[in-house]
């Protein structure tokens, strides 16, 4: 643990840390373009020049490791002068087309110019070296070589993270530009990350391009619900519409990355018709719209009737691997505590096995649900049922008569989804009475006794347990449509109507109760659930 001084402050740094890392950990910002926490050091942009005592020249902070007794100065006149010079050189051939550039508002060139630059350009616009603009690099990326500062972050990402090596420098002198061989598209499944790590507007997102200026957007911390990896993400939204999802750094889960499928999964919520109002099936077998209160009453009465008539063993709780821990916990509590049922299931397609299976070496996993591990920890994988197929055969035999079912469409789609949905549909059609919580409309839902509109991911606050059994919180970004409410809040209403005395006013309340009631969750720290995530013990059960 070497001790060094940065700007007259004594700092203890990690062994082998670079000056820029030590400074960042101490809250001192050193300007940089090419340095990135999760990429190998390159040291080409020279923005991070700092003065180190007894070194004859200024030295790049990203490529100089700390040593005992080092004295570093990051903001004296000599450093400022050098940084201003570097910035001026970087801007020599920059087209300054900020008004039409998507990066404007989150551009490092703009930010650092306001802090370190503020110089007048010596180069008139018509003397600048013109390069190629608007180059289509596949489904995620648009390249503008004029705006590039040649930091090579994107090149290093493709070389070292995905290992696909599509990008490279071309040309010499001030004609150097980045690009792919013959402008071939970048087709690796993580190509969207080059847009995030680009500090300037050279690489912009094909999906987000021109959709909204970034200063209009509001950001909400969330967790990607596209697979069981549970990458930390930030949802950017405006006026109830989600515009983009970008990664949020969590070194234990996703570093700074997000896969393209996950990135685009935000559009899946808006696809297809939503369930906006509750529906109750009448005596004539037709569903009619009802208020939430009426529907909850009908659900409660119907289920209690079935429990009284056929006994608790005929009641099944079907969770979803896409539901939050809170919703699953309350569902289990309702089915077990209030209806006397003891059967819980969530597996539509062997999620419990797939959840741990990586699809590639970076992030993606085969299980395209965010909370399979949570459902397992909350005891939803009943061995006596054995998946949805077991439930269907039991319903055929007449052993299961009624069920409470949570069903969410997966956000990252696979061919097997249709089969999973068909199984749920079959189960619903076989039951005498079913209460279905659904966010998206589907034809088969007409078989449900009561259909309740629930909020989808991003529309509710809740926690998901990823493949590492890490509980992570996703906050609410936008409001659910129509009468829809978070599943936990509807289940809380059902519990209250059937006589449970607990009162939950937020999903955090439910989580605190879950911490007390479920042994697996007993050890979690609520604060870390909302930051880097909290690990649960995997061998506990409800």
């Amino acid at each position, binding site marked *: 643990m070497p001790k060094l001084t940065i700007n007259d402050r004594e700092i203890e740094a990690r062994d082998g840390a670079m000056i820029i890392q030590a400074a960042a950990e101490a809250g001192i910002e050193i300007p940089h373009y090419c340095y990135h926490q999760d990429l190998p050091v390159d040291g080409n942009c020279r923005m991070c020049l700092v003065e180190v005592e007894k070194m004859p020249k200024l030295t790049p902070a990203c490529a100089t490791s700390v040593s005992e007794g080092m004295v570093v100065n990051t903001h004296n006149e000599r450093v400022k002068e050098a940084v201003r010079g570097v910035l001026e050189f970087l801007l020599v051939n920059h087209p300054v*087309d900020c*008004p*039409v550039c998507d990066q404007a508002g989150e551009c490092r060139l703009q930010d650092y110019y306001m802090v370190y630059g503020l110089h007048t350009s010596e180069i008139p*616009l018509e003397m600048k070296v013109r390069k*190629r*603009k*608007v180059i289509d690099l596949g489904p995620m990326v648009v390249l503008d070589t004029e705006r590039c500062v040649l930091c090579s972050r994107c090149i290093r990402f493709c070389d070292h993270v995905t290992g696909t090596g599509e990008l490279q420098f071309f040309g010499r002198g001030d004609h150097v530009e980045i690009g792919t061989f013959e402008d071939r598209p970048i087709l690796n499944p993580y190509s969207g990350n080059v847009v995030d790590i680009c500090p300037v507007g050279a690489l912009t997102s094909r999906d987000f391009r*021109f959709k909204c*200026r970034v*200063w*209009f957007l509001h950001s909400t911390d969330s967790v990607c619900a596209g697979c069981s990896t549970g990458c930390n993400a930030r949802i950017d939204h405006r006026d109830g519409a989600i515009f983009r999802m970008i990664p949020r750094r969590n070194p234990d889960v996703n570093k700074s990355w997000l896969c393209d499928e996950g990135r685009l999964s935000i559009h899946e919520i808006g696809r297809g018709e939503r369930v906006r109002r509750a529906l109750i099936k009448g005596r004539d077998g037709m569903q009619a719209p009802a208020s939430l209160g009426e529907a909850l009453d009908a659900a409660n009465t119907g289920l209690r009737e079935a429990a009284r008539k056929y006994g608790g063993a005929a009641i099944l709780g079907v969770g979803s691997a896409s539901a939050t821990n809170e919703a699953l916990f309350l569902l289990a509590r309702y089915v077990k505590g209030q209806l006397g049922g003891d059967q819980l299931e969530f597996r539509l397609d062997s999620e419990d096995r797939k959840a741990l299976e990586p699809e590639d070496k970076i992030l993606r996993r085969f299980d395209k649900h965010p909370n399979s591990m949570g459902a397992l920890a909350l005891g939803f994988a009943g061995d006596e049922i054995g998946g949805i197929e077991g439930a269907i055969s039991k319903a055929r035999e007449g052993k299961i008569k009624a069920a409470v079912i949570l069903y969410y469409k997966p956000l990252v789609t696979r061919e097997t989804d249709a089969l999973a949905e068909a199984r749920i549909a079959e189960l619903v059609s076989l039951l005498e009475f079913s209460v279905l919580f659904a966010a998206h409309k589907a034809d088969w839902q007409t078989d449900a006794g009561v259909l309740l509109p629930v909020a989808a991911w991003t529309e509710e606050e809740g926690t998901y347990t990823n493949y590492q059994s890490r509980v992570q919180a996703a906050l609410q970004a936008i409001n659910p449509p129509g009468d829809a409410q978070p599943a936990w809040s509807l289940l809380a209403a059902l519990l209250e109507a059937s006589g449970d005395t607990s009162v939950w006013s937020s999903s955090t309340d439910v989580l605190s109760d879950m911490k007390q009631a479920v042994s697996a969750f007993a050890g979690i720290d609520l604060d870390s659930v909302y930051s880097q995530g909290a690990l649960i013990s995997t061998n506990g059960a409800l």
Partner: protein
Amino acid sequence: MKKQAKVVNVSDRAQRESSFAKEVLGPLVGMKLTISRMAQNLTGQISPTINYPEERRRYSDRYRGAHILTARQDGSPRCVACYMCATACPADCIYIEPGEHPDPLIEKVPTRFDIDMLRCVFCGYCVEACPEEAIIMSKESEICALGREETVWGIERLMRRPELKEFGLGFRPNEKLVDSVLAVTPEAKPAIRMAGRITLKENVEMIPHVTFEPQQD
């Protein structure tokens, strides 16, 4: 020695000074200006009002009326959909949807540009924020409609308005631009002053050589 205060008996003095002439003529003298103006008005010598809308006042060239979107030479909007106007707008009345422009140097073009004239407070911030002189204001002040929907002006209406011939240009960044940048024949000048640098269909026919030249800094 103590100075004794002088006591003025107001009622005494009022009584002393009152007379019939003063009570009747006094107000008339006071209303001299009013009465003389009335006489002038009745005889038609002066008139403080005008017969609007047949007669109209000449507004200042900095009058902030309904907006105009200016056009390029080919008639497409000069706007690059940068949202500077929408960002500056305190009334949040500008709605823009950008699209891809075939020319990579222009890059962006609005596919929709709506201004809600009912929300607009006509502050002119959009004009000042615009880096392209793509939005300027006219002297058009009569924004009437039969329904709220009609008060949201789309890109077509903001770009081509025959009414502008009548109203003329209002607040814009460079008022002298009309005369200085464009080479104009003297007889076309009044028409340009009205139509400005916008290439309205009607005006192009009237003065064919008036097209927008990109301004060089």
